């Protein structure tokens, strides 16, 4: 036993070193486990604002929206204005307007020319017929 005292002493040293290494390992493993847990947490309280890449088209003004909206609003406004003017200043559009509002009959309707509906629609865009005195 005495002769192996050196060996025993060395064994004790080795055991203590093993204990020390084990303690260090466990401590390191615990620390690594804590860091791994922290690293795996995604909720950091931050929200992604968008794609990092800048878009090529401008976000304002929205030309289709502006053009479409303008046309729609203009059409609606014009239609309403036309209806308002027609209601305030009602013009004679047919025999019904004359006979409906007056107590006298409409004796004749003079229509200048027999024409198709397309010709009638295009009439306002044609120049007025000239009235010219010609020899008999």
């Amino acid at each position, binding site marked *: 036993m005495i002769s192996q005292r050196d060996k025993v002493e060395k064994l004790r040293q080795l055991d203590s070193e093993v204990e020390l290494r084990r303690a260090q390992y466990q401590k390191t493993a615990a620390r690594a486990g804590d860091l791994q847990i922290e690293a795996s947490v995604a909720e950091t309280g931050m929200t992604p604002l968008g794609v990092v890449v800048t878009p090529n088209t401008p976000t304002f003004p929205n030309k289709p929206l502006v053009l479409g909206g303008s046309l729609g609003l203009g059409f609606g406004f014009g239609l309403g204005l036309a209806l308002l003017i027609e209601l305030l200043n009602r*013009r004679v559009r047919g025999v019904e307007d004359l006979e409906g509002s007056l107590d*006298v009959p409409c004796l004749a309707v003079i229509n200048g020319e027999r024409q198709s509906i397309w010709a009638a629609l295009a009439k306002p865009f044609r120049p007025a017929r000239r009235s010219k005195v010609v020899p008999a």
Partner: protein
Amino acid sequence: MSPPVSVAKRPTLEQIAPTPARLSESVEMSPSLVSVYDPLGPSAEAIRALRTHIQSQHLQEGRRAVALCGVSRGHGCTFVAANLAVALSQIGVATLLIDANLREPGIDKILRRQSTLGGLRACLMNSDAPVSDFIDEDVLPNLSVLYAGAAAQNAQELLARDRFEDVMNTCLRNFDATIVDTPPANASADARRVSNVVGYSLVVARKHQSLVGDIKTLVGQLQGDRAVVIGTVLNES
């Protein structure tokens, strides 16, 4: 499908509306005188329908005159008056067409004959001269015309004289039918005065232009002046 109408079977212009006036070189007519220039057209047909109504409901009842009134300038009052007078003359009715528009005479722009007669203006200013001296007789067969003459600044005063009533009475005695064209009612009260003297009125409205309110106002004014509004004419041309 209906068979095509043969053009040869359609009535000729001379059959519908003989126009011996075309033989007269001194008469000038506007193409708007559709009763002569386009007797087969829809406008002439409408004028003939109006003539039929006037003849049956008006002349045969002893009413021998009618004043044509329009609200605004360009509504076709002169056009209807001239064509109605020509249409009446074409069926043998001794017709007199009077241009009582002393503001802006228009009959002479539609139907004109070179003459030195003074017209209605001179007739009203010369109380002693006989009315027949100012009437251009037989401009067309059965159609005489009393032109307005030159425009008068005092048209309302001229028409308000008793002389105008004498002139109208003379015309009513001498002619079977007297058609009177009047100035637009929104520019002066001449139309009301003429309608009051003539006694019967026909209101001309133009499609898409005449206001319903204006027509109602005019009819109310004419009826208030004791003129009988026999009807309206809608001018779509």
